[in-house]
């Protein structure tokens, strides 16, 4: 699903990533653990094509290496859900509008389908009753949950989390990690980068230790399964996104609705089961 082959990134004199090779399969949970400046965020930036490797290649689903055209890059990002340490919510719009943004960006849902989809995601993170609040009116933990709802609202193939508990106090951090665990258990691949060992330990993850842009411990992973192997539902292909779609239909056109691997968001269950945050503690 995600493969780095001898990927290096150099910022001037500094080598942020040094010939990094690793692989992540569909539905897997991988944590990069390392100190600040180890190159963790650079890995995420390579996956989202915010940065390009100085040498080597990065493959995400069907998007193979190299500099992608802007339209393809947008398409790639729509297959990902991203959670940032600083949430990156838009303060001038409500939580509902923030979570609705990726749905509108995807461009494949009619206006009347946006609301049930957003409400389902908000229900999953326990923020249904905060839909009309603005980010400034929420606690840090709630803001991060809203950011997670935004990341999962389109059922992405993989959720990327950049130090998601970095700005949170212990209880909120536990809740956010429980949420990420549940999302992963439902089938999403999860790639998390952190400086904190307890975060890595709280997830059922393959942990890779990163120092000075190199993996110093952990299993870098097996190569991609052979062609024809049955693919897991949370994949770029299963979601119906591919570069060919973009080529043949134009940048604004979206691929057909993929088969869902989670219950349809509409209708929203009248009394959704609350998330059990007590199942695992840090």
């Amino acid at each position: 699903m995600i493969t780095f082959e001898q990927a290096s990134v150099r910022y001037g004199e500094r080598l942020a990533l040094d010939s990094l090779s690793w692989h992540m399969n569909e539905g897997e949970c991988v944590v990069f653990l390392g100190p600040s400046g180890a190159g963790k965020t650079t890995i995420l930036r390579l996956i989202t094509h915010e940065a390009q490797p100085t040498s080597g290649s990065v493959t995400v689903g069907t998007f193979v290496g190299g500099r992608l055209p802007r339209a393809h890059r947008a398409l790639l990002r729509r297959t990902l859900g991203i959670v940032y340490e600083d949430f990156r919510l838009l303060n001038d719009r409500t939580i509902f509008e923030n979570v609705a943004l990726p749905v509108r960006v995807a461009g494949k849902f009619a206006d009347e389908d946006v609301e049930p989809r957003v409400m389902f995601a908000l229900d999953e993170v326990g923020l249904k009753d905060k839909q009309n609040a603005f980010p400034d009116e929420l606690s840090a933990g709630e803001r991060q949950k809203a950011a997670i709802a935004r990341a999962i609202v389109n059922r992405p193939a993989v959720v990327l989390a950049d130090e998601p508990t970095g700005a949170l106090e212990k209880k909120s951090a536990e809740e956010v990690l429980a949420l990420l665990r549940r999302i992963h258990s439902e089938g999403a691949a999860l790639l998390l980068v952190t400086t904190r060992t307890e975060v890595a330990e709280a997830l059922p993850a393959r942990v890779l230790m990163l120092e000075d842009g190199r993996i110093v411990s952990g299993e870098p992973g097996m190569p991609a399964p052979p062609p024809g192997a049955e693919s897991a539902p949370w994949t770029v292909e299963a979601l119906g996104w591919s570069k060919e779609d973009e080529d043949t239909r134009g940048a604004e056109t979206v691929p057909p609705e993929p088969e869902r691997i989670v219950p349809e968001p509409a209708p929203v269950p009248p009394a959704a089961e609350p998330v059990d945050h007590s199942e695992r503690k840090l």
Partner: protein
Amino acid sequence: MHGYYFKEASRSFKQHRGVAYAAIVVLTAALALTGMFLLLTYNAQEALSMMGDRREMIVYLKDEVDDAARALLTTKLQDLYGSVTYVSKAQAWEEMRQQVGDPSLLDAVQDNPLPASLRIRLKPALLMPDSMDAAAHQVAAFPEVEDVRYGAEWVRRLDQLSAGLRLGTLVIGCIVALAVVFVLHNTIRLTVLARRQQVEVMSRLGATDGFIAWPFVLEAMFEAALSALLALGLVFGLQQALAPHLFGIAFLPPLWAAAFMAAAVALAWFAAWLALSRVLRAIGP
């Protein structure tokens, strides 16, 4: 989805009212200047075309031309140059008496010295000075013709004035078009930079450039349309103020006003995409 674009454009406009209002004031001033020139050009063109319609050629006939020869000549001239009206010596004398006003002034003249004439209202294709010149030379070559008059110098000046006005409007129009593009380009650039965080977030969520850009483009088009409407209002006010003093001055016809607004909106669309294609590449990683 289109509803979303309009909602976003409205949000952006409200959030950056200061920049938007400043742009609207500047654009209104620039467009009003063009509108005034359009008003001047339109009215001048109307006046010139009315005068142009009255352009006629007077063909004076020799006294010895009999009715049969005159009828033959009339038919030939009608075929070649336009509609022909015969003015006899007596009619010409009567016209002169009316123009002079005081009949006693003409009492000293014993015989009617005025020649009979044929007045040709030329075909539209022959109204240009050069064509009129050529036609006059051809008509003068007929043996029945004594002389041909058509006010060559006046016709030439009329055409020069008309061409000058058209050129002036074109030059002013081009300068204003550049100013409109410049103002909107910078306004949109400032608006996008002010919403940099939003653009970055949307880019990371997988929004295409088109998705990010459309609300800004709509905002620019709205500002231009509003400015053009205000400018037309100012021009209308000017026309109403001048109407009592300048007889016959008319406001721009609906087609001209619609074309004026459409041009402003098209310029806004162009300026906005120009600005966005650069600024989005600078912001969106």
